[in-house]
């Protein structure tokens, strides 16, 4: 039996300066897709500047916040289910 741990894909708490809301402008991968650590997952825009969110681990992506939805710093927007034997 494999152990599965879910790693959170979080927007860094210090990604932008102001305490403004942001929006997920693009998901570059679909839900349930396989991703590798470092892959570009999404773009988040705060005050006209776009920031990249990359995969912190390898595994299967599970999107929790959809494109065009609002987010704040620190939010978890997806999880990656990491399989380990």
């Amino acid at each position, binding site marked *: 039996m494999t152990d599965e741990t879910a790693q959170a894909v979080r927007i860094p708490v210090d990604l932008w300066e102001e305490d403004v809301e942001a*929006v997920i*402008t*693009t*998901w*570059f*991968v*679909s839900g349930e*897709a*396989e*991703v*590798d650590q470092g*892959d570009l997952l999404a*773009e988040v*825009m705060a005050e*006209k500047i*776009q920031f990249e969110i990359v995969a912190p681990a390898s595994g299967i992506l599970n999107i929790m916040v959809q*494109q065009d939805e609002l987010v704040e710093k620190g939010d978890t927007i997806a999880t990656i289910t990491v399989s380990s034997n």
Partner: protein
Amino acid sequence: MAAKERKLTVARAMAEAMSQEMRADEQVFVMGEDVGPLGGVFGNTRGLYEEFGKERVRDTPISETAFMGAAVGAAADGMRPIVELMFVDFFGVCFDAIYNLMAKNTYFSGGNINVPAVIMTSTGGGYSDGGQHSQCLYGTFAHLPGMKVVVPSNAFDAKGMLTAAIRDNSPVIYMFHKGLQGMGWLGTEAGATVNVPEEQYTVEIGKAATVSEGHDVTIVSLGMGVHHSLRAAALLQEKGVSAEVVDLRALVPLDRDHIFESVKKTGRLVVVDEDYQSYGVSGEVIASVVERDISILKAAPQRVAYPDIPIPFAHHMEQWALPNAEKIVSACLEVTHSDG
């Protein structure tokens, strides 16, 4: 094992096409306003300056006449410039270099000089940027013998056609729609961000694509219009009308055969074009069917195009004028006589 899915926005796809081609061919370089460290105001040169430096990714002064002319001269001398015209609406300040030099020098030289330049330029409105920053001008550039014209509707075609354009020994104007780029501050058509292979590939310039099959009516479009057409096709399906959506992908060469074959199948034609209605793309598509065989048509063709007005600033006026899925649905219902 299948290649991992990887979506790109049109902007990133363009940047990837350029970076891969610049690695492969030293003669390729980019110049334009803000293409360097900024990565292009529409994100299409993202990462290029970091990788290739200021010799090959050149920020220019605001001197379209000079740098468009320079693109002609450099291309004639063996370079392969990709020159950005930031907004297609700016063509007025460099149109001679495009119209009378870039497109014509090969002909005037009897084929002895090639001008392998690519102009990449932004088109399209819908975000209240006003009449001098929102035009499509497809017809203006298609109506120019000697110039190839490419209009991608999605990131896959965007990368493939830009690679093909850079490799083409003829001049190509690559017209990307701002609303498909993936720039958050513009609002983006989600359907344009699609899976893009990591390796280099080309999409042939001059071949249209049927993006959704149907048998009651053919909707021909390009760029942003393809996405409106797909939405319209879904709505029409609910009403029992089966629409076939054709993405032109290029205006020069125009894939008249593909258009004709589709209309021959359905018997009905609706053309969707964000450029001005009269004297342009929609008329050309219709004419190319009608002059070939009018008997294939079961109804008069319709066009959903921008009215012949300068583009208004006010949001409600601009939205009223733009093509959209509802207008396309109406036009399709009319040609199929399904509107009661």
